[in-house]
């Protein structure tokens, strides 16, 4: 099967606001062929950043969402049977290596540990992908880049990244943007007015205060944007915050009650 790299090209510029020096760091890593690890809570812009980087560096972006049934052949490729004939199909990783694109493995901790080992030879200075079944070794071109994302917030012992994997990457830390930036992002993404966006940001901050005090995670920028979008569509502010922010964050009635009280105190 032939792969057209155009299929994976970003055509429009994705909206992305830089939080720190991550764009420069990424460029330097790319230049030096160091794979990158994007760390940060959910909804803090990791995936959007990758899209933006792919657009900026004009490379195709191949994203794989990892899950615990992801096998090595899902990544590398496998033989399929077609009319009594066998047909080799490249997996996303092999495809990305061949076209010299960005391969982005989203939520890598979700993948099985034996699967993550496949990326090891690609992630050090060898930059090769052995395809055992075909007895082939793919050498990654200079344009190829491997990126992983990982949410340390899960802090699950069962789902921690192995040191041998970790220590091959350059890590870019993502966190929630500061007030002004987050307001700007919400306004841009939802076209809500600035005053409401600011209040949403305040509410977001308050929920982040409750992290580990009953909430597993504070509201992400993504959730705040959802609420803003609901408000723009004519939903009441309190209802929008409830449905888009409080309810996704918690199932606990008391905690939901407390969040609702905070909303009513802020708006």
């Amino acid at each position, binding site marked *: 099967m032939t792969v057209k790299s155009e299929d994976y090209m970003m055509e429009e510029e994705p909206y992305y606001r830089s939080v720190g020096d991550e764009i420069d760091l990424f460029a330097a890593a790319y230049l030096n062929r160091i794979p990158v690890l994007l760390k940060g809570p959910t909804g803090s812009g990791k995936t959007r950043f990758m899209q933006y980087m792919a657009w900026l560096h004009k490379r195709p972006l191949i994203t794989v969402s990892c899950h615990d*049934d992801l096998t090595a*052949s899902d990544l590398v490729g*496998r*033989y*399929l*049977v077609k009319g*009594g*004939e*066998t047909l*080799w199909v490249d997996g996303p990783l092999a495809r990305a290596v061949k076209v010299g694109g960005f391969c982005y493995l989203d939520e890598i901790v979700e993948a099985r540990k034996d699967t993550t080992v496949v990326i090891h030879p690609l992630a050090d200075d060898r930059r090769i992908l052995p395809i055992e*079944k075909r007895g082939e070794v793919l050498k990654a071109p200079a344009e190829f880049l491997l990126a992983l994302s990982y949410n340390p917030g899960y802090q*699950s*012992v*069962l789902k921690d990244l192995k040191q041998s994997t970790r220590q091959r990457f350059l890590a870019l830390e993502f966190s929630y943007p500061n007030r002004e930036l987050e307001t700007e992002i919400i306004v841009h993404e939802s076209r809500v007015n600035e005053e409401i966006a600011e209040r949403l940001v305040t509410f977001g*901050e*308050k*929920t982040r*205060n*409750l992290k*580990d*005090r*009953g*909430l*597993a995670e504070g509201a992400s920028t993504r959730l705040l944007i959802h609420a803003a979008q609901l408000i723009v569509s004519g939903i009441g502010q309190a209802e929008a915050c409830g449905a888009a922010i409080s309810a996704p964050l*918690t*199932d*606990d009635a*008391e*905690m939901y*009650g*407390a*969040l609702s*009280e*905070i*909303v*009513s*105190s*802020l*708006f």
Partner: protein
Amino acid sequence: MSDAADKRIGQLREGLEINLKLDFMEDDEIRDIFDEIASFDPSLRQKILALSLSLSHASSSFVLSTLARIKKARHILSLKSTEKWLTNAFDLLDSKGIDPFIKFISKADDTEALRKYQGTEGLSLQSILPRLEAYIQGISGLGLKVVQGKTAYTDTAAIYLPALMNLYTAQDENFLIYKLMVVHQWSRIACSSLVPEDGIVRAFVKKQRNHPDIDSIFRNFQEREFAQDLYVILESIRSREFLVAELPGLMRKTDELEKSVFEERPHLESLSGKTAVAEGLFQYYLCGKTKGPMPAEVKVIFPKLKALRQAKSTSSTFELLFDIYHAGCCITGKYEARDLSFLGTIRTDKVSKFLRAKRTEKKKNYEGMINRLLSAPEMENRKKSSAAKTETEERELKPDEKYLVIKGKIIELDSELREIVEERQGIPGGILVKGSDLGAGSPVTLADLVAEEEIAEGRTGGIPYDEWDYKRSGYKKHWCSVYEHDVYPGHEPFVEMTLGRYGAYIGLLRNKFEMLKREPKILRRQKDGDDIDIDAVVEAFSDMLAGLSPAEDLFIRIDRQERNIAVLFLLDMSGSTKGWVNEAEKEALVLMSEALQALGDSYAIYGFSGMTRTKCDYYRIKGFDENYSATIKKRIAGIEPKDYTRMGPAIRHSITLLQSVEARTRLFIILSDGKPEDWDAYKGEYAIEDTRKSLIEAREKGIHPFCITIDKEARSYLPHMYGEANYTVIDDVRKLPDKITEIYRRLTT
């Protein structure tokens, strides 16, 4: 309502109408009276009608005045309490006649007297505590606890609120009052009302002492209560802008409420001088006006109040406070404190106490650091010449230096230590001496031995255990006697309260622990198993066609990885755990029990304390064979600090208990707050060595001990006593409940 009731009401109305007409009342006046009665809650109407009828036999004027009072009572009391009050009045009329009745009912003019009739219905703090605590923690971003107290105040770490709120019949409004209370208390913390800058405090305290705080300022006032109330109101005026900016939604809702509170407040002319001053200020806070003129002496301050709103620091508040206070004190009459509704009160003594405790904690922490410093590995004597410096010079740390020289020892500083030393610009001598003293042993004296025999008198049947004597490098045979008891059950609903407090967190915790349970896992691509792995077969088939050797792992197997863990928690119940430590230990146990209940690991909880070797008490809270029942919960509530910490025998007895349990992994978690110490010679090195030895014994017997220590002092001996990897130190006791579950999770996966 039933027909019979309707009929009765009809009869009452008729009777009343006849009586009123007999008293030459006009028709429209009578209609007004009936309208008035109709405005009451339906359940009260019949009683009010009956009362009015009885009164109308005497005079219709009584009816009018009584109705006005009932209205007032209803305004202040809840429905149930009004009913109670009314019944009381009616009984009085029936039994003692009209005069006592009039006397009783006219008491309704005094709001405070009426409040006594307020029953216990209303909104209880307990029922909303988890929600309120999460609310204020979210808003403030501080780990503020909400605790029940007599009035609303804060010591800057916890916010105390009254147990019951029944100012309104609607629970929503009662909750709003609670919310306002908690928010106002937070504003005291956020606007540093209670901990003004050092400069401000020093400016207003006459007698300069060590560590002056807000309590020192208020101790100077003769009329302390007057000054404190003034300060509460003034600070509320100052912090209003802050609250409006932070919580616009809440403050909007408050406007209504403030108006209704204002309506309830008394007329200034009915109050004595100072009381009128404070009351007037409060009314000004509520609505920007006062009922009646303020005493002339303080009128001048009003323009200044406007400026106070923009004031950034408490300095302006104190200036104004002194102005008003001095003006107010010129007016004669005693100050009678009136409730300031949701503004609450300030308890400067509590703030002061908390600040003191914090200082002590810091100092202890500091001592611990120095201890660590002294026991830190010596660096290469790179700078030999510096050893010759005088002692005072040695204690100084030059900026940017990573080394500290103490008595010729060159010690490398880690970042934490450096920070502290730089902050203090050197190490105070006193602490240095104290630090090096820690861990010193003391010899056994004959007096000690005699005394311990006396204590043991009358006790038999203890379980004997050996004790390790490091000096003779051998065991003292049957040296200690361990007595097992059950913890006396406590009656406080401690477990329920903790569950309430940690409501949402416990949900998360259970989830986390359930994840450890290891659901039966489907293993793909196995050599043998229960079912065929279709994916693998397809792949093997295609490999075969492609001319490769096909894989042989074509089966799916379901793997049940069962946990087989028994854990014993051993709790330090020594006297030193009194207060927060004991509280945190108990909370930790509740959370742990919840988590383990979800996980299904077999667990036991024991506590230990005692005094001397002949009286080592070992308390059962939950045995391995017991279920987590109401009895266990009561025992957890009943855990109390006792005497000393003789760790060796308690550990050895725990080993015996753990060995009797069937399990693949035996875990032994010790919770303590410091180093082992008993009343007799069991201290210092001896105690540390014995504890160390007993832990080694545990490991020899295949038990995994792990120690959690809440201790800031003297960390130096810990690695030696517990073994490098087998302990953790928690510096903030309040984090214990969260940490312990995390530690357990880490240990057992």
